[in-house]
């Protein structure tokens, strides 16, 4: 696993399945430029599961859409590189990009359950997804799926199999979206995204509308399909329980920037960036009742961004340096990337708490 969040401008195709280098996505608005994604770099190995968490509005969905080149005006990719399986995504033609979507990189969009066509039965929508692709001459369809050549019976089998993979009954095929609950619709969307066995699956809050039992089924389904085809997954979400259960590494975003990228165990047991730590501390438990309190303060204004570290106005450890100098994401320990000036202090604090804990244990 080579995270390489800061590849220092090396040229050429990287070996990772997905590599994002210094990506910036801006929106030009009447009030000014919104830097929704601001100098983000990370990479994914084949089969790796990567979680993207962070404050609402921190740019997770924008980042996901940029990977698929689906940013709409007034938004645009300002600069940076995206490499998918050795291909320079930003250099692809429109037609090549169309092929890349679904077969190379597929998206279960945030709220995608509402993008289902309201007047078309689920069966048709599942078949159309595949057909569009066959027509575009997709090379990646090694599952042999080609709706045009299938008999009615084969089509039924295909549709029922896809539905079964996400835990839906065959009769759902004959239904319209409004006849399904939110959770059922969301599962249909997941079925579509996995239909062409892509190399990277981006799932933007795929289970936030589902009950925990179905959540688990869906995530296990995603894990199974993903392992079968060796696809990497980027899971965007706010449910830290699911993150802990599903992903290998976590990237934490704040105000358009990645502030920490660490293995999942470390994020939960010893988060280093102060924002990451405060976020983890906010997690409520099913065991005892706490005061419900979030991190004090608001995220920075999009037009008057603070200088230095963007989190410094809300950070309990901020010093004068933090207000003036930006800290880049840096590999502070093997496989742990953090953007913070105050790591020595944080390290000492953590030493103290673990000493206290072990003393309390005696």
């Amino acid at each position: 696993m080579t995270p390489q969040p800061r590849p220092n401008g090396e040229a050429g195709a990287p070996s990772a399945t997905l590599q994002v280098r210094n990506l910036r996505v801006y929106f030009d608005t009447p009030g000014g430029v919104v830097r929704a994604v601001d100098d983000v770099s990370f990479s994914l190995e084949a089969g790796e599961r990567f979680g993207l968490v962070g404050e609402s509005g921190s740019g997770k969905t924008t980042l996901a859409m940029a990977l698929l080149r689906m940013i709409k005006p007034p938004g645009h990719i300002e600069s940076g590189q995206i490499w998918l399986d050795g291909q320079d995504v930003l250099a692809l033609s429109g037609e090549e990009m169309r092929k890349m979507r679904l077969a190379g990189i597929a998206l279960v969009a945030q709220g995608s359950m509402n993008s289902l066509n309201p007047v078309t039965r689920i069966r048709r929508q599942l078949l159309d997804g595949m057909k569009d692709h066959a027509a575009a001459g997709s090379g990646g369809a090694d599952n042999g799926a080609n709706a045009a050549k299938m008999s009615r019976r084969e089509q039924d089998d295909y549709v029922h199999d896809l539905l079964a993979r996400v835990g839906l009954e065959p009769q759902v095929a004959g239904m319209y979206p409004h006849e399904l609950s939110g959770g059922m619709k969301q599962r249909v969307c997941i079925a579509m995204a996995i239909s062409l066995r892509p190399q990277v699956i981006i799932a933007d809050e795929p289970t936030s509308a589902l009950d925990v039992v179905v959540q688990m089924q869906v995530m296990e389904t995603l894990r199974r399909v993903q392992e079968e085809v060796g696809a990497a997954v980027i899971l965007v979400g706010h449910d830290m329980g699911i993150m802990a259960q599903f992903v290998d590494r976590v990237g934490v975003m704040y105000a358009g920037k990645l502030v920490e990228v660490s293995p999942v165990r470390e994020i939960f047991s010893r988060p280093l960036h102060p924002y990451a730590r405060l976020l983890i501390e906010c997690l409520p438990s099913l065991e005892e009742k706490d005061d419900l309190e979030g991190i004090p303060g608001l995220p920075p204004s999009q037009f008057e961004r603070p200088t230095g570290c963007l989190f410094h106005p809300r950070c309990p450890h901020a010093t004068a340096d933090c207000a003036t100098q930006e800290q880049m994401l840096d590999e502070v320990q093997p496989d742990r990337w953090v953007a913070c000036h105050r790591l020595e202090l944080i390290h000492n604090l953590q030493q103290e708490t673990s000493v206290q804990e072990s003393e309390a244990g005696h």
Partner: protein
Amino acid sequence: MSALLEVKHITKVFGGGLFSRNRTVALQDFSLTIASEPPTITAVVGESGSGKTTLARMLLGLETPTEGQVLYQGKDLQGLSTAEWHSFRRDVQVVFQDPFEVYNPFYKIDHVLKTPIAKFGLAKSQQEVRALIEEALQSVGLRPENTLGRRPHQLSGGQRQRIMVARALLMRPRLIVADEPVSMIDASLRATILGNLRQLNEEFGISVIYITHDLTTAYQISENIIVMYSGSVAEAGAIDLVVKQPQHPYTQLLIGSVPQPDPDRRWNTEATAASTAAAGASDGCKFFARCPHAMSKCAESTPPLFQTDPHRLAACYLHEESPSLPAEEMASVFVGRGADASPLA
């Protein structure tokens, strides 16, 4: 005194005639009383497709029950006068599950917030309008200068969801029906918003029906909980009892499936073998096919609500030695604010 809102034996059937293949019983013989006093927070949890949103829509008068009635201060929603309807629309606010569906994409966010202020005369001057809006936005962690003047698609999912919460709070209603109000929001903001909801509940006497899949936050803010399975109540009562010692096998499965934010405590994948069957009118317990304790009796008749503790009911024959309670009395076992329901060890 009559209750603020009363739901009596409502059933909602979607689709086709009696024998149609696509007939769905979304809610079956559901009753609930929401008293004016004391204000409480009641969580409604349960399977996807178990009828929670359908219930919310009927509470709001957006959907007509196939059978049964919804009463607002003793009067059937169907028969409210224009003036009563106006007061109902102010008293009962909603935060919809789906922040993507409810916005008119051509209106700016300002419109969403100004319309109710104008309609219900909540402010006397433009300054007051502005102040109300800014206060509401800040209470959900939004900066007015980055929010006003924008259209819905220019905001993130969680930002849109928070506008809905801000709008409901602005109205100072007596009841907020919140359908997954914080599902797309990070843990910190969730805590902030739910903390605010809790505080408003206490300060202004706003009751809340909190529909959610997030059992942890439900546990943190609610006094009582209703667990739905396939259109019916599986278990209901004081939230401490239900969460700590679930009695219905479905509730046990649900609580046991909550993913822990700890990579070393793996979720239990065995329990979920069976998939969710669509609700259909049938005899017997709806959970029968998936239940590890199923008995022949369970397939024959629908279990009533058994009162296993003073403050808890479970619709399960495992508890048939307990006295049963008529469905419309469900809310009578609920606890009030700060009450200690737990005969727990």
